[in-house]
């Protein structure tokens, strides 16, 4: 009964084209943001912030990146991990050379490097489609991984071959490095992610986003309607890789604190892909749902047997997680290819017409 748009008449196209045309959605989002920006930092435990919320937000951002490319522009990529790596190493080099520039700016700028890498490896997309393209992104993945270990300059010739995040401050508060508290890091991340999600939403509903979807749905028709395939695909690669790059930089600087090449391996590419599939291809909301689901599921699977007093082997829960995620991927592809986001939408439709389910359409 509460979720009803009856009576909310739009009197201008501007109102109709707003991001959230329905009042209840706007209220809901405001509440979520309030909880995220105020409630969680004040109330949640360090573990919840540091090991649930921060990874969730980092992966959401990476999922947005991949979803732009795969869900919106229709180009399947298995190189997300490597593009995240480019952002992380770029940020590391930047802060080495410019230690005085604010680290948040550097993180945002480091995405530019991964965007460039994305464009480079996206070039074949002009001639190659679908599965073939997925394989060329594997080339990007493995080649970049090799670069991360072979080019010692990237990790400042450290003996360990790993990068370690130095402490950087904003207004005398440490925001990176081990002395930065989870709450501070969380606040930085949620600000960046909120901002970038808003930007993505804006771009996706405008001309550029539409051109990506045109290429995805029917590339030939898109071209015959004046879309330049190269420009559309490469801009999608660039935009998507930018997001992945920033996510990678956030992952290393705001979450783990150090990284070696294994932090960007192909398993991460898959992990983000799973988030996109389960969350829903072509949906921004889906990126958040998918990331939350994939990241939180193992934590729950670990916690539930403890709660009910079962002693499961740590490894067993790991395998169970794999099986469950695998089954869910297949399940969603069969039943609802648009993933959790679509389920959410269906739920809302039901609410909208409740208690008269046959009233609409």
């Amino acid at each position, binding site marked *: 009964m509460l979720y009803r748009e009856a009576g909310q008449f739009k009197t201008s196209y501007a109102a109709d084209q707003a991001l959230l045309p329905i009042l209840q959605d706007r209220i809901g989002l405001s509440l979520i943001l309030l909880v995220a920006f105020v409630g969680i930092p004040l109330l*949640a*435990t*360090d*573990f*919840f912030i*540091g*090991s*649930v919320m921060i*990874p969730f937000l980092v992966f959401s951002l990476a999922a947005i990146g991949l979803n732009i490319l795969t869900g919106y522009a229709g180009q399947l990529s298995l190189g997300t991990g490597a593009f995240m790596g480019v952002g992380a190493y770029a940020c590391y080099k930047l802060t080495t050379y410019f230690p005085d520039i604010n680290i948040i700016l550097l993180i945002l700028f480091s995405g530019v490097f991964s965007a460039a890498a994305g464009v480079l490896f996206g070039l074949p997309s002009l001639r190659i489609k679908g599965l073939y393209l997925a394989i060329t992104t594997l080339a990007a993945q*493995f080649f970049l991984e*090799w670069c991360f*270990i072979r080019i010692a300059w990237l990790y400042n010739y450290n*003996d*360990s*071959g*790993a990068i*370690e*995040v*130095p*402490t950087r401050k904003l207004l005398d508060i*440490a925001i990176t*490095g*081990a*002395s930065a508290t989870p709450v501070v890091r969380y606040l930085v991340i949620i600000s960046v992610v909120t901002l970038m999600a808003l930007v993505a939403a804006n771009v996706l509903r405008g001309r550029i986003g539409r051109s990506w979807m045109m290429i995805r749905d029917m590339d030939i028709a898109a071209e015959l309607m004046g879309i330049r395939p190269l420009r559309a695909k490469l801009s999608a690669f660039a935009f998507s890789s930018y997001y992945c790059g920033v996510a990678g930089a956030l*992952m290393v600087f705001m*979450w*783990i*604190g*150090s*990284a*070696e*090449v*294994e*932090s960007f*391996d*192909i*398993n991460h590419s898959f992990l983000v892909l799973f988030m996109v599939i389960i969350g829903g291809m072509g949906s921004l909301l889906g990126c958040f749902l998918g990331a939350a689901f994939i990241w*939180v599921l193992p*934590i*729950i699977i670990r*916690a*539930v047997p*403890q*709660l009910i007093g079962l002693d499961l*082997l*740590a*490894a067993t*829960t*790991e*395998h169970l997680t794999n099986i469950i995620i695998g089954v869910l991927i297949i399940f969603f592809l069969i039943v609802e290819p648009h993933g959790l986001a679509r*389920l959410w939408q*269906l*739920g809302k439709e039901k609410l909208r017409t409740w208690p008269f389910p046959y009233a609409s359409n």
Partner: protein
Amino acid sequence: MTNRTFTALAAALVVASCWIPVAQAQDSLYIPSLTYRTGPFSGGGTPFADGYADYLNMLNERDGGINGVKIIVEECETAYNSQKGVECYEATKDKGALAYSPLSTGITLALVPKAPIDKIPVFSMGYGLSAAAAGEKFPWTFVYPASYWSQMSSILKYIDANDGIRGKKIGFIYLDAAYGLEPIPLLDQLSESMGFTVAKFPVGVKEMQNQSSQWLNVRKESPDWMIMWGWGAMNPTAIREAAKIRFPLDRFIGNWWAGSHNDLKGVGEAGKGYLAANFSGLGQEYPALQDVLAHVVDKGLSKVSAREDVGNVLYNRGLFNAVVLAEAVRIAQDRTGKKVISGADMREGLENIDLSEERLSELGLPGFTGELKGSCADHEGGGSIFIQQWNGSDWEKVTDLIAPMSDIVRPMLEEAAEAYVSDKPDWQSQTCS
């Protein structure tokens, strides 16, 4: 189940997961165990985790814990993945964790900077950052009983003792990751001072089981000796390939992560003669291990798949890790006078560890390992290793303890520690008198 109940249930679970009893250990010693019983390196992770848990459980069963305080061992699966490792750390640190032994260079590197903040020591036993041996710079990190660099120097000493190293060519085959890269600076340094040449053969993590081109390159370079920094499936594959190109296996030395029963089990006869470094005793003939068998394994409290796996190289390594931790707890209890200790107390215990021959005998591990004595400045302790050889079905100890070339290694370790700290203005050091 409808969508809404499903969503509601999921939400409830998430909320519940934030409220998992984070019981501050009041009357127990909480020792987390970051394991990897899954993933590409589970072959090594599993026996290590078994030995680690079994020893601590044995103390519970036999003595009712340490000085009457029960030990809680909680495993958290990392799958050798840094992100999961950090998650495990965050999930367990507030439960009163006394120390972490991540058994992964990647996770260790992530935890080293966190240790001083959270006041929980990191005990990376024979892995991780070599530089952490310098206790002044790394008050919270311990690499007992030897760093990678010390180990490398001991291996080179062994080679030198077996018909000289000057003018020889040493091949170094290593896992192409932080772990494998660690000893290279020392190797390069010593090649100059000891007068040998080095040929390097990196093996990509993804290519562990596909090493034929590396070994073709070995054949091309034809080194006199081979040294391996390998882990997991890389080891048996390398030994097989070495046998294939007829490289003399008694001139092929693995480090202490490349010389376990799991590595050679499948290779069997073909691996006869292969050498490896080690620092923990072989077999189950020690009184302490007999106690483990009697109090834990035979009671069905262990996760080992077979009774004879007790005493294997990596099982004993994991057990030794637990021995050092338990000893550190005892020392911390003595020094503070508290029964239930904190991470900071534990650090003190670790720093003052003293496993002399007599003490090892008291613990039921006579001659299990070399003397281990830590100090404020020395977080490496002993540094000595021995060499073992595969006889086709089992490992045999073939040398006595070989001390590292401390005169060369120590300054390099200090230098590396200095370099690590140099770009970290807020780094917590300590001064040792």
